[in-house]
């Protein structure tokens, strides 16, 4: 989230699209009801289904799953055509005026530089013209036909209301009503907030869905302001913390990168990370990259990381492929290229697409280690549960070790919520049986490994034997110790260069902010963005003062928000170019002639003069990007692509199937249904229910009572066509698998008409499995395709094709 949950109460319009906040985030949804009740805010829901969010909305518009980009580009087109643009914001705070290289173009669904065999682009033309002064060329008049604004105008012009209707199936009048309501928020005194979740991410073009809305929010001037923003509602408690801490194969904590094979030494690695400003005076904050990186290395290897050994750069793993994401991991497992899989707090047999492939892959492992507080399907993948898990234990050689862990309520630590708040929590109960904290288990594994390396040596013992392990009890690092390390501390005294008798930093002290981090090895920080969370003043995450001066919703004394306790990112953009709030009634910070101050921690240097320094301090431009240059694999503007399994041909680019640069493994390609396949005629989507949390709560009796048995949702029209009765059994199958579930025949799903063709939507909740208190059932991933987003490989769970029929239910033996 750019903003905070509590800030949603400040909005005038909530748009829930690509999510179902009332269903999946009921507690956070209270801020929507607050905005509605106290500000008269309106709520729009755009979704293939009339959801729980829709049930309390002011306006609902249906959309076919996987067509969000066409819808969003259509709204942008409407705003441009009807001059509903926050011009002062767009001109001052976006790259609208930046001139793009002549080579760049878009035609027939492809941008310049496409290589079909590599399924990748040469992105060199997707960039600005750089002038003789070394800065990007801009045309503040927006007259240059090659400036971003004019390229954008042309790019979105195809997405007319008629085209949106043909692609999305949204009736034209409903689409225009949404446009009208959204466009009102181009006013300086009206804001809109976007609340989205997995409904946008779980597509083969998920990142571009989100960009589409981010661009619209920039055009409306809604980023950095109270009641605005791009608000990703995270799908798991602490999934925000997971990404912050870089628990992905290509990241290290704080959104730094794991080196690639080509970056053989530290100098090479840093050579592409200069982040030289693209416009004069800009902060381009990533210029501090080296400070963050060296401090991370010092937190990892302490004294062993020195200037002489490049801060132990060579001890970091180097990527030979873009990422070892979950889809690649299971592909490799299936191909016998992986022997041991450590599965910590994760149930991939339910959570990754194409269950049959996953089960086959797990069966090829030599050892599977499960760390979980609960019994999971993954831990029992080898067990025969009839139709629900038709495994043959005698044919599976994988050894499975289950290490019971504490659950979140039984240990201490912090959780990072969607609004980037690190909230400390204390144990509410004692762990049962032999359960241990995850850190105790990991410490046990590490200490044994280190002993083995110390005794027996090995191919590469250095990173293990030199790991800094400064915990009072090495067998069980305490949450506070880990938090302090993450925050960072001073390794050796730093003297003031002006006055060598004065200490700037004192060895052993906790750091107060990441602005103090240094690249000379005198500071350590496990995760630079968390610096400030555990300072000499104590554990800032444990703060519980809910005072909120003037009811702004900022709550600066409650917990700690990264970065720097800032509650709204880019908040300098809440003011005009002179530093005065766009909307005085929603002041956040302002320029008082000498410095920035207000209700939130300014997201800019406190004395940076408003006309000089742009609000988007992380970007070398200092402004935000309507055109993302070469930073995304699938284009600098979002373009409509159909899902890999689609009931219709791509209207704007008929030759293109799916996202042209999404990675597809060879064996999986043959398991995709043909476009508009008569064998698999229905457009399916999968989702969560409020009664359950993923695959955990089916273990809990009360949750199982509230939603006991698996079902699929379909329209009355489709039920009639297929002679399916409400509450009766159906069988649903895709090209990858088949499941049985109860039929939920509902008015909440209606057939859509896309380009003259009737499209039936089938909804499949994800929660059931063969373990737990609820009735046995099938998870949705029996059906879903093994393909992910082109940039980050999030699986395409939200749009695929199925067939279905009335059934007498699963055969029971």
């Amino acid at each position, binding site marked *: 989230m750019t903003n905070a949950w509590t800030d949603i109460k400040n909005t005038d319009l909530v748009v829930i699209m690509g999510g179902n906040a*009332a*269903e999946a985030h*009921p*507690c956070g*949804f*209270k801020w929507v*009801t*607050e905005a*509605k*009740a*106290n500000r*008269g805010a309106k709520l729009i829901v755009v979704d293939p289904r*009339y959801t*729980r*969010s*829709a*049930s*309390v909305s*002011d306006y*609902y518009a249906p959309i076919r799953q996987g067509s969000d980009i066409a819808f969003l580009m259509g709204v942008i087109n409407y705003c441009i055509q009807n001059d509903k643009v926050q011009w002062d914001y767009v001109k001052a705070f976006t790259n609208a005026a930046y001139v793009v290289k002549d080579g760049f173009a878009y035609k027939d669904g492809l941008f310049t530089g496409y290589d079909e065999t590599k399924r990748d682009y040469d992105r060199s033309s997707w960039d600005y013209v750089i002038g003789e002064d070394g800065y990007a060329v801009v045309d503040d008049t927006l007259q240059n036909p090659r400036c971003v604004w004019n390229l954008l105008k042309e790019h979105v012009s195809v997405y007319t209301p008629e085209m949106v209707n043909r692609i999305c199936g949204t009736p034209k009048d409903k689409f225009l009503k949404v446009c009208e309501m959204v466009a009102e928020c181009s006013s300086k005194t009206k804001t809109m907030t976007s609340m989205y979740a997995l409904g946008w991410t779980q597509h083969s073009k998920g990142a571009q869905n989100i960009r589409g809305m981010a661009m619209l929010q920039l055009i409306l001037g809604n980023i950095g302001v109270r009641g605005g923003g791009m608000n990703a509602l995270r799908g798991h408690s602490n999934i925000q913390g997971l990404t912050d801490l870089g628990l992905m194969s290509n990241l290290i904590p704080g959104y730094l990168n794991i080196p690639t094979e080509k970056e053989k030494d530290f100098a090479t690695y840093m050579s592409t990370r200069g982040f030289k400003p693209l416009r004069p005076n800009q902060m381009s904050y990533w210029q501090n990259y080296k400070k963050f990186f060296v401090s991370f290395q010092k937190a990892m290897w302490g004294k062993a990381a020195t200037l002489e050994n490049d801060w132990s750069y060579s001890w970091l793993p180097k990527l030979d492929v873009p990422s070892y994401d979950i889809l690649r991991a299971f592909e490799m497992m299936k191909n016998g290229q992986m022997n041991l899989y450590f599965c910590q707090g994760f149930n991939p047999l339910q959570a990754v697409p194409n269950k049959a492939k996953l089960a086959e892959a797990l069966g090829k492992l030599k050892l599977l280690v499960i760390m979980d507080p609960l019994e999971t399907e993954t831990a029992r993948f080898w067990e025969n549960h009839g139709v629900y898990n038709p495994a043959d234990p005698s044919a599976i050689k994988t050894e499975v070790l289950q290490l019971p862990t504490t659950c979140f309520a039984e240990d201490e630590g912090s959780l990072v919520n969607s609004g980037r708040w690190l909230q400390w929590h204390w144990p509410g109960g004692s762990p049962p049986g032999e359960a241990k904290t995850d850190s105790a288990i990991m410490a046990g594994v590490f200490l044994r490994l280190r002993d083995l390396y110390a005794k027996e040596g090995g191919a590469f013992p250095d990173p293990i034997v030199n790991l800094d392990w400064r915990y009072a009890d090495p067998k069980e690092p305490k949450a506070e110790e880990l938090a302090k390390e993450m925050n960072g501390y001073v390794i050796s005294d730093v003297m003031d260069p002006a006055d060598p008798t004065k200490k700037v930093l004192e060895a052993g002290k906790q750091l107060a902010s990441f602005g103090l981090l240094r690249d000379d090895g005198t500071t350590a920080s496990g995760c630079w963005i968390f610096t400030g969370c555990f300072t000499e003043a104590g554990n800032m995450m444990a703060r519980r003062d809910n005072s909120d001066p003037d009811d702004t919703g900022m709550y600066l004394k409650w917990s700690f928000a990264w970065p720097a306790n800032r509650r709204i990112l880019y908040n300098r953009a809440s003011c005009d170019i002179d530093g005065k709030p766009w909307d005085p009634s929603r002041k956040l910070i302002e320029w008082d002639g000498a410095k920035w101050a207000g209700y939130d921690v300014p997201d800019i240097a406190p004395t940076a003069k408003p006309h000089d320094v742009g609000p988007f301090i992380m970007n070398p431009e200092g402004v935000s990007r309507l055109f993302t240059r070469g930073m995304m694999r699938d284009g600098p503007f979002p373009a409509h692509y159909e899902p890999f399994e689609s009931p219709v041909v791509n209207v704007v680019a008929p030759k293109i199937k799916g996202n042209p640069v999404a990675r597809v493994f060879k064996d999986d390609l043959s398991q995709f249904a043909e476009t508009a396949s008569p064998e698999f005629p229905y457009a399916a989507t999968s989702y969560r229910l*409020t*009664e359950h949390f993923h695959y955990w709560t089916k273990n809990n*009796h*009360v*949750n*199982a*009572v*509230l*939603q*006991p*048995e*698996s*079902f699929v949702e379909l329209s009355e029209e489709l039920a009639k066509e297929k002679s399916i009765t*409400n*509450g*009766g059994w159906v069988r649903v199958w895709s090209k990858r698998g088949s499941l049985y579930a*109860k*039929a*939920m*025949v*509902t*008015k*909440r799903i209606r057939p859509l008409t896309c380009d003259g063709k009737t499209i039936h939507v089938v909804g499949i909740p994800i929660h059931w499995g063969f373990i737990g*208190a*609820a*009735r046995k059932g099938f998870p949705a991933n029996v059906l879903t395709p093994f393909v992910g987003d082109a940039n980050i490989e999030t699986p395409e769970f939200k749009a695929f094709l199925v067939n279905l029929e009335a059934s007498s239910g699963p055969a029971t033996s």
Partner: protein
Amino acid sequence: MFPPIPNPSVDPAAAKARFSDADLIRRSASEITPPAQRLTEVAKLIDVTKCIGCKACQSACLEWNNLHEEIGISDGTYTNPPDLTENSFTLMRFTEWVNPETENLEWLIRKDGCMHCEDPGCLKACPSPGAIVQYSNGIVDFIHENCIGCGYCIKGCPFNIPRVSKADHRAYKCTLCSDRIAVGQGPACQKACPTQAIVFGTKEEMKGWADFRIKDLKSRGYANAGLYDPPGVSGTHVMYVLHHADKPSIYAGLPDHPRISPIVETWKGVTKYVGLAAMGFAVAAGFIHHLIAGPNRVSPEDEANAERLTGVAPSGSTPSDGHEAGRTT
């Protein structure tokens, strides 16, 4: 936001119940002298228009009251279990309603449960002294040790709320968490509600809050938005804010004009004495039956239900056998 009810004090004095038998204004099948002054009347306000159907209230009710509901089946609705039971005192009822004026679908979600009528039909119908009581703050409570399981309360209830347990043959329903209210807390459902669709306070406060909500709804085009506090039962201590207050019955059969059945009303009149005579005869007949046929035997089914209730499994059988066998085919 409606001001939240503060957490209870840890001071033992605060845990002292604030009302007792001395606060009763009604007691089933009994004559009592009501207290000279009533406690402040309380109410729970359920704002259907803010409810997202998350069932946190249902979950909190099961947990606070330590109830064990059965895991049912999916029958093609989001209403689980399909009806109120002796273990589910509250239930979210989901209705898909197409508004004939706008042709738009509306998904109406209503939290069903005891309305705590000011004029409680259940209490009036109850023949067992002290099985149903009403406190002067308006809460209608069942005193299970006095319940004879006759089920008259169900007949007397204009909202079809109480359910008789198959295990102990006693009637159960929402207590408005009288145990929590007694120590200054709100009901568990209210505490759990994430969107303040359920709020709790004095009846006057709730009416005022409802007005505030109804103004907002009218501004959004719900011309018939209003408060459901039906006069047929002299008002209720659980009230609804409805978007379509002119048509309560679209909300899963909420009665348009609830009133106590005339049969129950006349119970207090002549019927009562005729009935008492009939009962006298029945006692005599029963005594004669006992002399001839001997005492009743406890059936195996009663035994199993009782075991389930106490959670003790006797040797040779498992308590869940009976239920599982009854449902699985």
